[in-house]
């Protein structure tokens, strides 16, 4: 099928970015009143709101675990977040992503401190332009911090794609659609461990290694923004008092 070139001859992407450049990031912490913790993230045009409840009592009670807290996560896309309206009922994709997002965040949380309880994480994508699971994870770890939940580290996430033969950092919708591979990665940057890794498409071992390196760089950049956002948020709270 005929399609436009995704990478120009001088190595620029559709939105003018360099191959290893992430989109502008905006974080807002404490955006919801009722949730125990919340955060909003813009990753370019991708917009996600995350609310966190807990640790609190788990219902039904028989699901509770005696030595730790159960993490529950729900990733959901609003019907108006994409071009063609998406029916609000959870799709198979959303169920899978909810699982991997939960598993990406859980290593960071000291679950053993809150036996028999649950922490609920709700991520709502209000506008999707690629890398929505990455934005959900990055925003969720700020929402968890906002809720005062003890964590080993923040979790930062970014995706790497192969587009027209080039590896690109922070994948937007068109690159995801027409690229030949997509690889979302989440990590705890100061622990230097990976908590989410998915890939589809085709990569050689060498390309995979390079993608992983690129993702590491991207996660580090997201991490810096996360820390900045937390610092300025808590500094402002202090000044208000």
């Amino acid at each position, binding site marked *: 099928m005929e399609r436009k070139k995704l990478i120009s001859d001088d190595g620029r992407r559709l939105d003018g970015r360099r191959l290893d450049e992430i989109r502008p990031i905006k974080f807002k912490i404490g955006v919801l009143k009722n949730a125990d913790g919340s955060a909003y993230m813009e990753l370019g045009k991708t917009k996600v709101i995350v609310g966190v409840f807990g640790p609190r009592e788990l219902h039904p009670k028989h699901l509770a675990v005696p030595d730790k807290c159960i993490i529950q996560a729900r990733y959901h896309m609003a019907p108006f977040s994409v071009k063609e309206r998406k029916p609000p009922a959870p799709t198979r994709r959303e169920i899978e992503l909810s699982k*991997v997002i939960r598993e990406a965040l859980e290593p960071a949380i000291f679950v053993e401190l809150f036996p028999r309880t649950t922490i609920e994480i709700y991520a709502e994508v209000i506008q999707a332009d690629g890398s929505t699971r990455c934005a959900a994870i990055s925003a969720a770890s700020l929402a968890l911090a906002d809720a005062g939940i003890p964590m080993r580290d923040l979790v930062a996430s970014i995706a790497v794609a192969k587009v027209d033969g080039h590896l690109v950092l922070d994948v937007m919708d068109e690159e995801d659609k027409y690229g030949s591979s997509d690889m979302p990665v989440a990590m705890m940057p100061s622990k230097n461990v*990976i*908590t*989410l*890794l*998915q*890939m589809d*498409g085709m*990569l*050689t071992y060498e390309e995979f290694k390079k993608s992983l390196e690129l993702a590491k760089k991207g996660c580090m950049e997201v991490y810096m923004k996360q820390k900045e956002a937390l610092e300025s948020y808590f500094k402002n709270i202090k000044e208000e008092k």
Partner: protein
Amino acid sequence: MTISPIPSLKKKQIYELAESGKRIDGRGLIDMRKIEINTNILDKAEGSASVKLGDTYVIAGVKFEISEPFPDIPDEGILSVTAEFLPLASPLFEAGPPDENAIELARVVDRALRGGKAINTKKLCLIPGKKVWTVWVDIFVFDHCGNLIDASALASLCALLTAKIPKTEVIGNEVKILDEYEPLPIESLPIIVTIAKIGDKLLVDPSLEEEEVMDCRISIAFVEGKDKQEHICAIQKGGRGSFSYEEILRAVEIAKVKSQEIRKIIPCGGK
């Protein structure tokens, strides 16, 4: 996936054994369990295969259906993979719609087959933009004794390899299905290898006991590309823990070798 409460003694035992390079069922760290493949086990399904991976037992069936193509790929057939974790396969599986584990499994198998370009979907187009073949792969798990992903991926691939698709005749906007069959256009053999992390050790093809206590797992699919090189065509990390970079690179290298071994034992039915 927690199937049963496992005594912490067994967890300790599994970790200690792994530390010294051993496993509770006597395997080495990178040994697979015995694989038994049977193909064409059913007549009504257009393709079928059963795989036993140790005691894990799955059956995959292939059916075809004429449907409308996706608007963004009007000239390609559709691959659709589902998985059912039957209540008879484990004391903790319940009847009902697929849970997140079954959905994840089906989607990972789907990604490996799709990413690895196992089926030439262009050849499944009947009338561009109007009618294409949908290939249904339905995975049924009959006995869950660990590593359902690898067993299911293998069963799906083998079922596709034996599948016979009806020949058709296109007259104007009508598709006439003929009583003649031909093999599916299978062009590559993506193989998934799942590796569990236990402490700082990597264990290939985790058993149920190992899955219950592992830190996390990574499933990696390899396919031999047209360039005769091995390509990674899908990855999925699962479970609560985390991997270091070195562990991931090591897992990918192990999976590359193991997938080649598994590919050699595939019966290439119909070819």
